[in-house]
């Protein structure tokens, strides 16, 4: 996994609540067996006027010019600002993959859906929860200041506005450690191999039927 430490980047505002994973990446694109290449279809139904399908040349499709990410001033954005309960719906990791492939590494919202939130950390992305009032202020500032950038500092757990105001945020210690060091979760867990084996032995004595599933193999 790629490390995440600091990021200074352009902010794009997506002023909608309850943005679900079907909106982030519609189901027809889940048929890929790869982790990359989802960026051109991020928010597909909002971004384009026609219906998208896998494998088409997206550069030739008619754009919905009213959709915020299609506006010139937000091209190259790496921070997405949005509203409450972002990422609700399915567990598809294709949602963070699509956001990352498009170029977003940080998402700011008043709240996130649990599975989406967790999936972001597995991909070197940082979802940040800020109070609703601070999110509102950021929306106002982004919309009235073209080229609006924020500085995100994970070790310090701060988001710094252009006027120097620092907003602090909470992050789980384990997730922070993994992001800063770009650690592979599986490798870390396998360091606990002995503990897993000891657990299995103890459990097998108590609930043997849980482990008795080899019959058909």
């Amino acid at each position, binding site marked *: 996994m790629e490390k995440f430490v600091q990021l200074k980047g352009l902010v794009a505002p997506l002023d909608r609540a309850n943005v679900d994973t079907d909106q982030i990446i519609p189901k027809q694109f889940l048929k890929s067996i790869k982790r990359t290449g989802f960026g051109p279809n991020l928010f597909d139904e909002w971004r384009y006027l026609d219906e998208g399908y896998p494998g088409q040349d997206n550069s030739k499709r008619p754009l919905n010019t009213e959709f915020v990410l299609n506006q010139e001033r937000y091209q190259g954005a790496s921070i997405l600002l949005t509203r409450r309960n972002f990422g609700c719906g399915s567990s*598809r990791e294709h949602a963070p993959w699509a956001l990352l492939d498009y170029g977003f590494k940080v998402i700011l919202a008043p709240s996130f859906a649990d599975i989406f939130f967790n999936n972001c950390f597995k*991909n070197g992305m940082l979802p940040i929860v800020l109070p609703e009032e601070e999110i509102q202020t950021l929306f106002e500032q982004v919309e009235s200041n073209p080229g609006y950038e924020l500085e995100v500092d994970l070790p310090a757990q701060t988001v710094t506005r252009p006027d120097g105001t620092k907003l602090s945020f909470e992050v789980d210690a384990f997730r922070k450690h993994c992001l800063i060091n770009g650690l592979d979760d599986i490798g870390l867990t396998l360091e606990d191999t002995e503990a897993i084996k000891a657990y299995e032995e103890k459990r097998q004595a108590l609930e043997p*039927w849980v482990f*008795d599933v080899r019959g058909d193999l």
Partner: protein
Amino acid sequence: MTAKTLYDKLWESHLVTERDDGSALIYIDRHIIHEVTSPQAFEGLRLAGRAPWRREMNFATIDHNVPTTPFKSAADIEDETSRIQVVTLQDNTKEFGIRNYGIGDTRQGIVHVMAPEQGAVLPGMTVVCGDSHTSTNGAFACLAHGIGTSEVEHVLATQCLVAKKMKNMLVRVDGELGLGVTAKDVVLHIIGVIGTAGGTGHAIEFAGSAIRSLSMEGRMTVCNMAIEAGARAGMIAVDDKTIDYCKGRPFAPTGDAWEKAVAYWRTLVSDEDAHFDTVVEIRAEDIKPQVSWGTSPEMVLPVDATLPIPEEEADGVKRSSMERAYEYMGLTPGMKITDIKVDRVFIGSCTNSRIEDLRAAADVVKGKTKAASVKQAMVVPGSGLVKRQAEEEGLDKIFLAAGFEWREPGCSMCLAMNPDRLEPGEHCASTSNRNFEGRQGNGGRTHLVSPAMAAAAGIAGHFVDVREL
């Protein structure tokens, strides 16, 4: 000893190790796999040269992509990308020695129908799958939730997950459910009350006399939609119904092991004085048949209601969501739910495709005919075994005689990854779980309802109150 909730007990019995930073490693008893969220995980294993920790704990089947018209081999799947995923799962499970209920196997079906049906899921287990509706399995007093593909790989490689304990939420529904009010109406009503983020960060335990009165199929419907209330996991304590359902299933213990298991399973209830961080109390008598009108499951109302007026909503964020939903759904504030016309009917999905659901729909349809204005009414059983049982009971004949279609098992029009889908602008009475924009097809308009309500709408051509039939 302090009193514990069911979730506390499940968490503690699966704790492998706790780390200094507050995270924990929990053991996973069952991992269910399907074709859409697993290819990248198997590829990850291959690249790292890792093998599954315990291959026998994994159960795979195909559901999201499969056609619901008869097909005999992968070559019959017309859509190339779908076919590749189905074949990739076949290849991956073969390579890693994992069982896969694939094409032509009567056990094949929607992951959350297949797993309980096989007794793969039993009380007291932790169950995960790369699918958010894994919460369904919580009906068996399991800690069951969806995971992303990175975690699919993690579970394959380690049989564990890195987790943090969630908060405890109790949703208690006491009283007697009225005639025509089903498990689906109960859970839609709950979501209408607490909202789509109401359960975020929590594991929800559903309890109370109305929940106890539900069959295991009904309980699965309720737990299935915990995720639509924001909670990754929903669960229900063990009682006689749980144990009766599990008895004799292919992967259930037998003999002495069964007796020992039952004795343990009986302890899987919340202690009387257990502490819940959040408690929601609902009167069963307040629940009417529900119909969702908007683009989020919380936009739901009783069938006899009129649609809400955005100007009356005080919360600005909610008001703009409502306005956007009206625009998408092509509906007018203040109109009656029963005036909404239906173009298609979908009876199926991991929420409502079990035998009891099909019986309820067949009861409404029997001896009647689909409205001419309804283009299609599709019944999609949840598994090959559900299909077989329904056919033994003659339900297929009832549906076909009424002009409904009888299909092969799969996820089908719940998420339209296969050819079953809505055309832009069409309204669908659907027994599925999500009414998001485009969920059932680009521009499609979903109304979430119970199987009986969907069937009734198919006959009338618009929503009707099943209590009046």
